[in-house]
C-alpha cells in the first residue's frame, strides 16, 4: 500500500538517526488478524511495519513502561529518543503525558498517521471465527472494509468499527514530527450513544447495571496496564500503608477500584478504548470514562491531550471554576 511504503521510509529515516534508540510500530501478528507491537532498532527491522484498521493497540503505553535498571560498572544510561507510530487518539495520550510532565517533548519522535477508525476485534471474531491463517483487512474509498482470508469479503465499515471510533473527534494526530498520509476531515458518526443510554436510566437502574458488571471483575488490572495514562509508579491500589482498597475480590472492592480509576482519569482519558479492549470479562469501561469526559467538558470546557502547553485540568485552579456543589 502506498501509505505503508511512506511509513516504512519515514521510519527508516528516523531509526537511522544517532539520537534514536528504537521505533515502536505495528507488525503482523502470529495468527489470524492479530497485530503485534514491534520494536525496530535498525532499517532492516522496519521493513515489516504496516498500518491498517486492524492496528488498534495504543503504542504510547511503552515509553512510560521502560524500567530503570541498575547499571553495570562503566555503563551509562541510554537516554536516546524513542520513536512511536501514533494515531489521532494515541498522540493525544502523548500530549497529555507531556502536559503532566511525565515525558519531555524531546524524549519522543512521533510518526503520526491520520486514522479513519479501527475495528472491534470481538465483532471481527464473531464474523470470522476460528481464523488461524494470517488474514488482512483494508479500507476502501466507499466506507467498506475489504477482508482477505482465503476469499475476499466486503463488509460495511459500520458493522465492524470500534465503538469509541464512532464518536472520534480527533482522527488526526495533534502532535507529530512526521505525518504519513493526508489529514482527514472530521468523520464523527455519532455521539457516544452508550453514554446517552446510561443517562436515560434512573439512578437505581444505573446502580444495578454497574453492580452486574463489577461483580464479574477479576481485578486482573489489565485495564490499568493497557492504559497509557495509568503510569503511576505506585498505584493507589497497591499501597499497603495505608491500604485504600482491600485485596479481596468482592463487589465492594471491585466497585471501589473501577470507580476510583475512572475518577483518576477524569480530565485525562483520551478515549483510545484500550481498557475496554483488554478487559477479559467485558466490562464496558468506556461508558464510565466517556460519561466523565462529557461532564468534564460541560463543567470546565476542557478536552484532554490537545495542547502540550496547557496545564492539566485537575492540577490547576481558575477563579471562575464552577462551584455550585460547594455549600
Amino acid at each position, binding site marked *: 500500500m502506498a501509505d505503508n511504503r511512506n511509513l516504512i521510509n519515514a521510519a527508516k529515516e528516523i531509526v537511522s538517526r544517532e539520537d534514536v534508540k528504537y521505533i515502536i510500530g505495528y507488525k503482523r501478528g*502470529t*495468527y489470524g488478524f492479530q497485530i503485534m507491537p514491534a520494536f525496530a532498532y535498525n532499517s532492516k527491522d522496519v521493513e515489516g511495519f504496516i498500518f491498517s484498521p486492524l492496528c488498534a493497540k495504543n503504542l504510547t503505553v511503552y515509553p512510560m513502561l521502560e524500567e530503570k535498571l541498575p547499571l553495570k560498572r562503566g555503563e551509562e544510561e541510554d537516554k536516546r529518543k524513542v520513536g512511536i507510530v501514533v494515531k489521532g487518539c494515541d498522540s493525544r495520550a502523548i500530549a497529555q503525558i507531556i502536559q503532566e510532565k511525565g515525558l519531555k517533548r524531546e524524549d519522543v519522535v512521533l510518526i503520526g498517521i491520520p486514522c479513519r477508525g479501527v475495528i472491534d476485534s470481538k465483532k471481527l471474531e464473531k464474523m470470522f471465527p476460528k481464523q488461524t491463517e494470517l488474514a488482512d483487512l483494508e479500507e476502501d474509498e466507499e466506507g467498506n472494509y475489504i477482508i482477505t482470508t482465503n476469499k475476499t469479503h466486503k463488509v460495511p465499515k459500520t458493522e465492524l468499527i470500534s465503538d469509541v471510533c464512532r464518536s472520534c473527534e480527533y482522527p488526526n494526530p495533534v502532535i507529530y514530527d512526521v505525518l504519513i498520509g493526508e489529514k482527514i476531515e472530521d468523520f464523527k458518526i455519532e455521539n457516544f450513544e452508550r453514554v446517552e443510554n446510561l443517562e436515560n436510566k434512573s439512578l437505581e437502574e444505573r446502580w444495578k447495571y454497574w453492580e452486574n458488571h463489577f461483580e464479574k471483575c477479576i481485578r486482573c488490572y489489565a485495564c490499568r*496496564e493497557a492504559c497509557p495514562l495509568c503510569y503511576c509508579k505506585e498505584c493507589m491500589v497497591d499501597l499497603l500503608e495505608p491500604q485504600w482498597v482491600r485485596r479481596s475480590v468482592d463487589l465492594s472492592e471491585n466497585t471501589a477500584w473501577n470507580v476510583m480509576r475512572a475518577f483518576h482519569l477524569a480530565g485525562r482519558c483520551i478515549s483510545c478504548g484500550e481498557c475496554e479492549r483488554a478487559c477479559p470479562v467485558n466490562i464496558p469501561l468506556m461508558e464510565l470514562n466517556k460519561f466523565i469526559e462529557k461532564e468534564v467538558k460541560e463543567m470546565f470546557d476542557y478536552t484532554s491531550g490537545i495542547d502540550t502547553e496547557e496545564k492539566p485540568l485537575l492540577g490547576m485552579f481558575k477563579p471562575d471554576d464552577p462551584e455550585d456543589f460547594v455549600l
Partner: protein
Amino acid sequence: MDSLILLKEKLPEMLAEIAAKFTLIGPKEETGFTQFQELDDPSEINLDYLLSRVPPKSLVFQQTETLFTFTKGKEIKVETPKVDSGKRIVFGIRPCDARGYDLLNPVFEGRKEGDYQDLFYVLKRNRSTLIGLSCNEPAVNCFCTSFDDSPASTKHLDLLFTDLGDKFYIDVITKKGEELIENLSKMFSKASEEDLKARNKVEKTSISAITRKMNTEGVTKKLGGMFQHEYWGQVAMRCIGCGICTYLCPTCHCFDIQDESTLKQGGRIRVWDSCMNPEYTHHASGHNPRPSRMNRVRNRVYHKFNFFPRNDGVFGCTGCGRCIDYCPVNIDIINIINDVEEMK
C-alpha cells in the same frame, strides 16, 4: 461400568435431578462470555461454548478464600472457617481444563509424604465430580494435542459426555463417576458398537481440525541452557505486564495472603496474584530479584516448560490457548516454544 447413552432431550431431566440432589455447577452465559457458576436453575446452562473465559480452576482454587478468622480483645481466638461438604457436580468441563486440575494437584496436595496440603483445595477437589464435555470443534488457538492429549480425552475426568448429535455418548471412567450414575434415575441406555464408532469419529474430526502445533521435543533441556539468551529480552519488550495470561491460565496458581480486619475482628484471606506484577517479588529491603519485564516473562515461560517438568515430570501447560487469545500484545507461547526449538 460400560459406556452409556443419554438422549439429548433427557439432558435437562438429568441436570434437574443433579441440581436437586447435589450442587450443580455448569457453564453459564454472561455478557458475551461463558463462566462456570453454581446453577440453581439447570436451564441456565449453556453448552454452546468453546472455552469458558475464566478457567474452572476458580472452583477449587477460589479467587478470594478466607484462611481463618480471628477475634481480638481479652482472649484472641483463631478459627478455620467451615467449608461446605456437600457433593458438587461440575458439568461441561473441557478435557484440557480437567487436565489443569491434575496439574494443580502436586502444588496444593504435596508431592511426597510429609508435604503440606492446602485444606481448602483438598476439600473442594474431593467433593467435586467432574463430568466433561468433549470438544466437537477446537477453538482458534487450541493445541492440547501437542501434550499427548485430545479434545475427547478421558484421562482426567470422572465421566465424559460426547455430543453425537441427538444423543450423548458417556464414558464412565472412575468409581466416582460410576457412583454418580448409580445415584441417578434410570435414564441411560447401553452404548452400542455404532455409538462407539460415532464417538471416535467425533474425536478424530476434532483432532484433525486443530491446526496450531507446539513442538515440545526436548524443550525442557533446551531451555536449561538458554537462561541468559537475549531472546527473552526481545519477547518481553512488548509485554505490558497486564497479567491476563496468569489470571486466565488453568495451571497458574500464584497467590497473595493479606490480613483484613477491623478493631475487634478480622480474617486472613488468600487472593490470586500474578507473577507479572513488578511488586510480586519486591523485598522490603528494596531488592527485587525480577526487576524487569524480561525477568518476569522469562520466569513464566520457564515455570511452565522447565521448572514444573523438572519438579513434577509434566509440562505445566494444558494447551487451552487462552493466554494467546487474550494477550493484548500478541505474545504467543506456541511461537515462543517453537522458536526455542529452532534455535541452535
